[in-house]
């Protein structure tokens, strides 16, 4: 008995050693830069001790304060735009035109394949129109950000809608005399609250971290301001970077917590965040016979 078991036990020990080694080494690779940021941003150069001066600047520096305001406003506008565009469309497709489901999915995931840099190069005409219509304000960046967050928001909302029986809910409401607006706003939406929150959280996290669009269109959002500020005060930039990572991490971990409270939410963050379809293979839409 023990002779048969011992090779298995040694295999188990080897596996344990392997797991601990991998986890410790990769953990160190990921944690050291974060700790370095904390150390760097609180260090007194040419002296001893710690200072919170760089962190205090986050609240007082006008450039950074303005940029934080701009980014928060943009994330709000993006969340509103994303929800208004996506929720009615997805509900409608499920209820009335299920044959368009694959097309809508394909279009929603398309921004993962087209690099943002390509979009911004091709958008010069559209951005000229936007700045003509809305003036020289960063707010219209939200139109572009809606496209950017589309795949992630789509996954969250689609998962939420799959978890409930939309058709039965809608038929019940319709047979009681509700119009389509009522069906969407007061029947479906309250039932997918978790999915709405997930989609909003990930959108906020993405908008707060966005740099490509804003910098190439010359708008001072948070990330652009962080990059600009580094030329005069590197410690402040590092402090702001660490702060923005922490906010994004809080949002995304909060997301996993919210969806984890419900059933089998283990993979929700992963599916929401993974940049390309990890689910079943994309198959071409089937022709109706």
């Amino acid at each position, binding site marked *: 008995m023990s002779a048969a078991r011992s090779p298995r036990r040694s295999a188990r020990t080897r596996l344990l050693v392997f797991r601990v080694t*991998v986890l410790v080494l990769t953990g160190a690779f*990921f944690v050291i830069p974060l700790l370095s940021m904390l150390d760097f941003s609180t260090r007194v150069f040419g002296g001893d001790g710690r200072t919170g001066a760089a962190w205090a600047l986050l609240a007082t520096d006008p450039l950074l304060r303005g940029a934080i305001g701009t980014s928060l406003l943009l994330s709000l506008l993006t969340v509103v735009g994303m929800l208004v565009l996506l929720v009615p469309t997805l509900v409608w497709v499920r209820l009335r035109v299920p044959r368009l489901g694959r097309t809508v999915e394909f279009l929603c995931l398309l921004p993962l394949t087209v690099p943002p840099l*390509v979009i911004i190069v091709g958008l010069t005409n559209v951005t000229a129109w936007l700045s003509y219509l809305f003036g020289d304000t960063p707010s219209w960046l939200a139109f572009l950000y809606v496209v950017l967050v589309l795949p992630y928001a789509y996954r969250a909302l689609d998962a939420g809608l799959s978890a409930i029986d939309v058709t039965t809910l809608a038929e019940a409401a319709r047979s009681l005399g509700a119009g389509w607006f009522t069906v969407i706003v007061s029947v479906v939406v309250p039932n997918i609250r978790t999915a709405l929150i997930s989609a909003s959280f990930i959108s906020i996290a993405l908008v707060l*971290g966005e740099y490509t669009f804003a910098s190439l269109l010359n708008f001072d959002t948070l990330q*652009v301001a962080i990059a600009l500020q580094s030329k005069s005060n590197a410690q402040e930039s590092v402090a702001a970077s660490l702060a923005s990572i922490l906010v994004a991490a809080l949002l995304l971990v909060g997301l996993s917590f919210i969806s984890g409270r419900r059933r089998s939410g283990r993979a929700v963050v992963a599916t929401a965040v993974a940049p390309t379809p990890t689910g079943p293979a994309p198959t071409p839409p089937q022709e109706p016979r």
Partner: protein
Amino acid sequence: MGQGDQLSRQFRPARLLPVLGVVPFLGYLLVFLVVPTLTVVVGAFVEDGRPSLAVVRDLADPAVLGSLTNSLVLSAVTALIGGMVGALLAYAVVTGPADGALRRLVTSVCGVLAQFGGVTLAFAFIATLGISGVVSVWLDQNLGTGLTSSTWLFSLKGLVLVYAYFQIPLMVIVFLPALDGIRVQWREAAENLGASTGQYWRMVGLPLLTPAFLGSLLLLFANAFAAYATAAALVSQGNPIIPLWIRSALTSEVVLGHANFAYALALEMIVVVAVVMTGYSLLVRRTARWLG
């Protein structure tokens, strides 16, 4: 039900009406996604309002070609490093309890870190290994490395290290489902037939995982190739990679004597990413057969 009946059903307005509900969504994506992509594809072949190959031909400029090579090498190397380390990390996680705290922690953290590119990541590494970085100062004092007087972090080598920071977590996220698809029963069946651990991996495990692994590598490749913000924040001078060429083309209007050069560069990016993603979806289809 006759054929004609079916046809008239298809074209009844009542059947077309519901489609109208999707029009705002389609219109939005048309303006903000499809039109820009088409603008790039068409614009690359136009000069002074006339069809021309002059702009695309300039992609063969030695400086641009060198950057393309750099971009491809950077993407390939970071995909390989990210892929291998990420696969090991995923395996270390998957061999633990399926609902354990470790697994939850690692997937959540990887979800955050895979998104963590751009300016913040650049500053994380400047604070760590930059000229007055915490680790570079320590290494110089204790091991005499000379990192604080070197600019390697802002070169291609530095980009490899920095990109690994988001490539490894991405690999964990995309590769975990494949590892989950491996059934314990296969292992048991192999052991019952007398296979050793090595034989099991060589003849069952690895062949099953290879398409998923290669697919994930392609995904990582495309991810690195399309990445812009991290490199833009780290490299302020010169254009070592293609995305930074696009930055100069956009900010200085005329590059290599062409106003449309950004279109040609963007087209080059589309082509590379499209080829890679086609390979990816082919491999995913193969993977789904066993591990789906």
